[in-house]
């Protein structure tokens, strides 16, 4: 397809509304926070707003994607967002293609990611795309289960190849076997190609990530709209309840923790788990305790792969993974043991959940007006239930298992740079973009090959230091939820499903002044129930350890792996997120009142404020401000 025709067929999915004179801030007028001057150097040129395309950039509706990246991006971590920029977009625009949707564009503004869906509005183009789409998507839907089992194999294979990639410092003298095997290529080439394979492996998994996702969301969206038309006001938790598997891979890590708690009771080593808060001390004591060896065997078995579980969304290197930081699963385990010691049942009530789901489904079905409607309901529900295991489980394969291992490999590479005196700390690597890493790696090879000091040894340290300061300044800034021209209609399915952006959301944002000290915030009701308690602002997973019983968790986004603290908190509130956001799924499973997508909760609420969360109405009310 010629480029020109592409541009002609692409319109913003969201068109500016002329009737409303309200508008979001112009993206070009966003001020750089003090201390963050020159932030643009952290990112590649193509990620920044360009004055050369000013009219196009201003005319689009940009919303902040805090669902996946609540914090300003580290330069290296853009590999994740850059991946879906292409991988998710191409599925809609070129692969299926989805008749009404092109891809989702991205820009970094003050280091935060803003996205903008492109749509197709020309009826002729929609019709042309529909021909391809019907055949291709139809094939996937008809063969869904087989394709999903192939998918799981591909995903595991990709993870297996990732695990085999090794990084080590270059040797002083090339090992003899590399000479006598007549390979003709040496450690330098191995290091460079390992890096390339690492990046390609990430982008390969990133492509699998979106192979079936749009279609899965599409089926769910269709069923959801049908229910909403039949029963106006039906809540999303109710619709999801009809569709959700009561068991999915995201719940497995927590299930393993429950099992280990039970095993600790049976093997009479529960006291060892309870006694030590520090994981290392506990494991050391366990090794010498009677019955401890058997428990440790079970513990080790459960870790692979279930502790490859990120405490964040998996999209940033800073989210600790259970397997590297055992405090979170062990804290949960202590909770479970205490419950068991009080004689409580800690198993999830699967049978009663199933019974409830079937009852709800049956009653709604009976309320539909005609037999034809019931037939459509049955069909759509059946299809949605079929696609849903993928929609839920891909998250474990991709973001948790693969990406956790990816970050760990990147740190292995960082150790090579530390060994070659480029950085003082392995974490410094993340202040370089992946393309800069390639340069730095080549720089390192030249130093090794020639025996001269590589320039990198004196070049990167001041840059890393400056970038760290810039990023710290950016992190203090609160990104507005939207910029640019407000849309009047939103058609792009993923925008609706994943980010919870609807025409109502936009209206709501337009009516809110982010700097106002509002005492009531509105968001998406993600899980029903009502709770009142003291707020605890959690900005990173380290803050999780500060949480006191019955507090209300207020965060940019709830990460699924925070589940272990759910038994202690009264409710969860997030700035961002839609009903399909990874976190919303888990909140519902735990029956925690939850409001997501409030826009400004972390900015307007302080730790210690008394707040009331209404998970049915989707409101968060500040009842009393904390003193001072």
């Amino acid at each position, binding site marked *: 397809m010629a480029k020109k025709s592409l541009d002609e067929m692409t319109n913003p999915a969201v068109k500016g509304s002329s009737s409303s004179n309200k508008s979001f801030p112009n993206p070009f007028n966003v001020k750089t926070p003090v201390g963050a001057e020159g932030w643009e150097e952290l990112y590649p040129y193509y990620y920044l707003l360009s004055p050369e395309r000013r009219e196009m950039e201003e005319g689009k509706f940009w919303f902040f994607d805090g669902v996946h990246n609540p914090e300003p991006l580290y330069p290296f971590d853009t590999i994740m967002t850059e991946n879906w920029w292409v991988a998710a977009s191409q599925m809609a625009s070129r692969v299926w293609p989805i008749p009404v949707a092109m891809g989702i564009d991205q820009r970094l503004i003050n280091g935060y990611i803003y996205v903008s869906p492109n749509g197709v509005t020309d009826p002729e183009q929609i019709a042309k795309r529909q021909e391809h789409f019907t055949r291709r998507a139809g094939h996937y839907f008809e063969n869904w289960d087989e394709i999903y089992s192939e998918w799981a194999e591909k995903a595991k294979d990709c993870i297996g190849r990732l695990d085999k990639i090794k990084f080590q410092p270059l040797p002083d003298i090339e090992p003899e076997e590399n000479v006598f095997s007549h390979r003709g290529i040496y450690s330098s080439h191995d290091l460079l190609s390992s890096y390339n394979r690492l990046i390609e492996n990430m982008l390969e998994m990133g492509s699998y990530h979106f192979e079936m996702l749009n279609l899965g969301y599409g089926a769910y969206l269709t069923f959801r709209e049908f229910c909403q*038309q039949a029963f106006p*006001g039906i809540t999303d938790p109710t619709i999801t309840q009809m569709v959700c598997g009561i068991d999915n891979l995201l719940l497995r890590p927590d299930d393993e923790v429950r099992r280990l708690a039970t095993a600790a009771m049976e093997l009479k080593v529960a006291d060892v788990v309870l006694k030590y808060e520090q994981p290392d001390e506990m494991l050391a004591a366990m090794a010498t305790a009677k019955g401890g060896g058997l428990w440790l065997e079970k513990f080790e078995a459960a870790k692979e792969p279930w502790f490859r579980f990120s405490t964040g969304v998996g999209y940033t290197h800073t989210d600790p993974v259970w397997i590297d930081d055992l405090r979170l699963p062990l804290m949960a385990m202590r909770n479970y043991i205490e419950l068991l010691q009080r004689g409580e049942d800690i198993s999830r009530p699967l049978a009663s959940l199933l019974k409830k789901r079937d009852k709800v489904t049956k009653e709604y079905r009976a309320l539909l007006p005609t037999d034809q409607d019931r037939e459509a309901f049955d069909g759509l529900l059946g*299809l949605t239930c079929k696609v849903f295991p993928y929609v839920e489980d891909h998250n474990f394969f991709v973001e948790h298992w693969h990406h956790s291992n990816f970050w760990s490999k990147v740190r292995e590479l960082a150790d090579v740079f530390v060994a070659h005196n480029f950085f003082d700390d392995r974490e410094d690597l993340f202040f370089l973009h992946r393309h800069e890493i390639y340069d730095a790696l080549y720089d390192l090879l030249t130093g090794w090959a020639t025996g001269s000091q590589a320039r990198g040894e004196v070049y990167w340290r001041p840059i890393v230091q400056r970038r760290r300061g810039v990023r710290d300044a950016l992190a203090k800034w609160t990104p507005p939820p939207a910029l640019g021209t407000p849309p009047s209609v939103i058609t792009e399915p993923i925008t609706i499903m994943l980010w919870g952006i609807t025409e109502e959301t936009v209206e709501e944002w337009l009516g809110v002044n982010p700097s106002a000290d509002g005492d009531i915030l509105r968001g998406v009701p993600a899980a029903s129930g009502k709770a009142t308690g003291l707020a605890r602002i959690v900005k990173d997973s380290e803050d999780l350890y500060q949480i006191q019983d019955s507090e209300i968790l207020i965060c940019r986004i709830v990460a699924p792996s925070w589940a272990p603290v759910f038994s202690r908190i009264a409710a969860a509130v997030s700035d961002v997120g839609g009903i399909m956001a990874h976190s919303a799924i888990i909140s519902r499973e735990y029956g925690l009142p939850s409001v997501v997508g409030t826009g400004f909760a972390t900015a307007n609420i302080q730790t210690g404020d008394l707040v009331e969360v209404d998970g049915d*109405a989707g409101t968060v009310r500040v009842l009393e401000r904390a003193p001072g």
Partner: protein
Amino acid sequence: MTDLPFIIWLDHEFAPGNPLLGGKFSNLAKMLAAGFSVPPGFGVSTAAYHHFMDQAGLEAEAASLLAAGHSMASADIKSKASDMVARIMSQPLPSDLETAIRRDYALLEERVGQKDVPVAVRSSGELEDLTGASFAGQYDTYLWIFGADSVLHHIRMCWASMFGDAALSYRGVVEDAGSRQDVGICAGIQQMVEARAAGVMFTLDPLNGDPSKVAIEACWGLGEGVVKGDIAPSHFTIDKVTFEVIKRQIVSQLKEYAFDTKTGAVGLIPLAAECQDNACISDKEAVNLAKLGKHIEQCQSASQDIEWAIDQQGDTKVLQVRPETVWSQRERSGLVSDVKSPVDHVLLRLSGVRVAKPPSEGGQP
């Protein structure tokens, strides 16, 4: 005529569905029989009404008035009707009937353990259920009546209310009503509920006919304000399947309908300040009402319009039950127009075509 009972207690085995009790009261008897909490009482039957009219020599004229009513009241008919009302109020009650009513009011006093027990005297018309028309608010209800003399007086007022302007002309717009000239009316006597909060509920969403919702309107005090419309009620919409509170709109209220000790009658009196801006029922009470509504609907096998009250002890009472008359009589149109495979539905949706037609607009049925 005297074979038919003048008085039927709500808990009598022949009360449920008995036409002698009129629509409202025979339905309430059904509710009581089904185990719902209904204030105790009895109906002064349509047979009692006919007995009085017969003894007073008013039957023939009543029939001609009811027949003419549907042609809308001319000045002549108006004067005849007001003459009829005056005679109903003044003609002596047959002594057997008066004795029976006094005896059973005393029995009610005994049953609830209160001398001069306050009661509601409600008109329960025979046509209420027969025609599918609600007759809502056309016949009078008198609250907080106490003492046998006053009860007797208000029973006459119920009878007379059949000949009020509004009731006569409402008959005119209800099909077939005009052909029923022998129609009678029952006067229901029930212990008064000292309502902390009260109101009405529909077992569907009255705005769009959605049968998956229970819509509740509630106010502080007696429910008269909600029924009459002179108190803006708070609204609750409850999901009938999951019992989630989907909508909650609390309206502040300055006055309530309650028994006014100064006037000795029910009137609008100032509401306690601490109540004015607060919800008159809790979410839990709203959900319990919805459960009650759903249960009643299942018993009646049709959508219902229910009056309820919550007394000072927090007990919920059913005051009136009748079929919902607007949406129930419309055929619900289907959502999908073409039979398609689910995959085709999804493919079309992602091509920009929705599965279902837009939801029906509220307003005129």
